């Protein structure tokens, strides 16, 4: 009964339709064309560099997404294709065109969308107030999603060699059916990212 309740709530949650897929619960919604793209306002701060713009993602197929970040007023800043365990950089402005920055973007985006843990081995634990799913991405890397059933806040923590690298907080809209905003914070260097959903 508890599992059923937890599953039902998880179906209602998620980063559009990508995050629920993490839990292997509802794949049907991914086939709806309206859910294959999303637009978010992005605020990205890394060291002394600040960036604002729009993050636009599109599902190309079940295991590939394309994400671009564009300035509100004009041209693109970043254009990247996300695969489950790799990426292809189409474009990045000079200031961002560093392997460490792009790799960090990639890790952040595939973790937010849940693309990197889609086929990973997982271990689920359920308590009265919390569902936790621990994905083993590799020998040293884990991604742990936890969903608080009481206050409908979901978190994800990316762990490398047992050390917390970054956390993601998912906040839900009034109807609690879709993620309204996302906040990601790195713990090993000064970097954070806030995403807020926009309906065009």
């Amino acid at each position, binding site marked *: 009964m508890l599992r059923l309740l937890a599953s039902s709530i998880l179906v209602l949650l998620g980063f559009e339709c990508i995050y629920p897929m993490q839990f292997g619960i509802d794949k049907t919604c991914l086939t709806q064309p309206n859910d294959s*793209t999303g*637009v978010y*306002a992005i*605020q990205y701060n890394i060291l*002394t*560099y*600040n*960036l*604002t713009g*729009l993050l*636009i993602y*599109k599902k190309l197929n079940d295991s590939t997404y*394309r994400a*671009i970040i*564009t*300035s*509100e*007023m*004009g*041209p*693109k*800043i970043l*254009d990247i294709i996300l695969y489950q365990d790799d990426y292809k950089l*189409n*474009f990045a*402005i*000079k*200031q961002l065109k560093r392997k460490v920055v792009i790799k960090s973007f990639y890790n952040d985006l595939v973790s937010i969308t849940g693309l990197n843990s889609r086929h990973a081995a997982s271990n689920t634990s359920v308590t009265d107030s919390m569902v936790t799913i621990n994905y083993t991405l590799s020998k040293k890397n884990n991604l742990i999603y936890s969903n608080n059933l009481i206050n409908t806040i979901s978190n994800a923590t990316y762990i490398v060699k047992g050390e917390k690298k970054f956390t993601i907080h998912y906040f839900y809209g009034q109807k609690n059916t879709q993620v309204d905003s996302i906040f990601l914070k790195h713990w090993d260097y000064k970097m954070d990212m*806030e995403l*807020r959903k*926009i*309906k*065009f």
Partner: protein
Amino acid sequence: MKNFAFCLLFIFSCYSCFSQTYKVLEDKEAFQKLYIEKAKNIVSLESKFVQEKSISFLEKKLISEGTFQFRKPSMLRMEYTKPFQYLFILNNDRVIIKSNSHETNISTNSNKVFKIISQITVDCVSGNVFNNKNFKSTILENNDSYLITLVPSATDIKSIMNEIKVIISKADYTVVKLEMVETSGDFTILVFKDKEINKTIPDASFTGK
């Protein structure tokens, strides 16, 4: 329905802006002189704007709108009101951005994209567009307007943009439309409407207070 009608009107106005045949301007120098002269008389400018962002992999265009304010020498405020709240202020060499609950105050030097776009917009309004050494310009005209095409000559701008098209009204020599075409072919169009020239714009508009 209202939004649909508005989109249709916007698309039609964009189409009509570019559909009129432009021909080569015979006396480029005379135009530049007149444009600079007219721009000298513009101390401030306020208008509404509609922005259309076209991205190849998206079926629909991203259309947003807001208010534009400019005051000499180089103060610019673009406030997006639909479908999201976003405030961009250029106050000489500082950029203030308000997005959601965040406020960011940075130097234009720390963000190349901001610098390029804000500089071009200010240059267009203040008549300095031909003085920008980062671009080579060509000018065409039709009955109602001038079409200035700016092609970047600086390498760092070339990597971001293919060209910028600016349409200047013959009636008041202000910018009607600005189109930024990226190297990928994606583009952003800004259409300015309901312009008010030399209206008093308070300092507070450019401080973000």
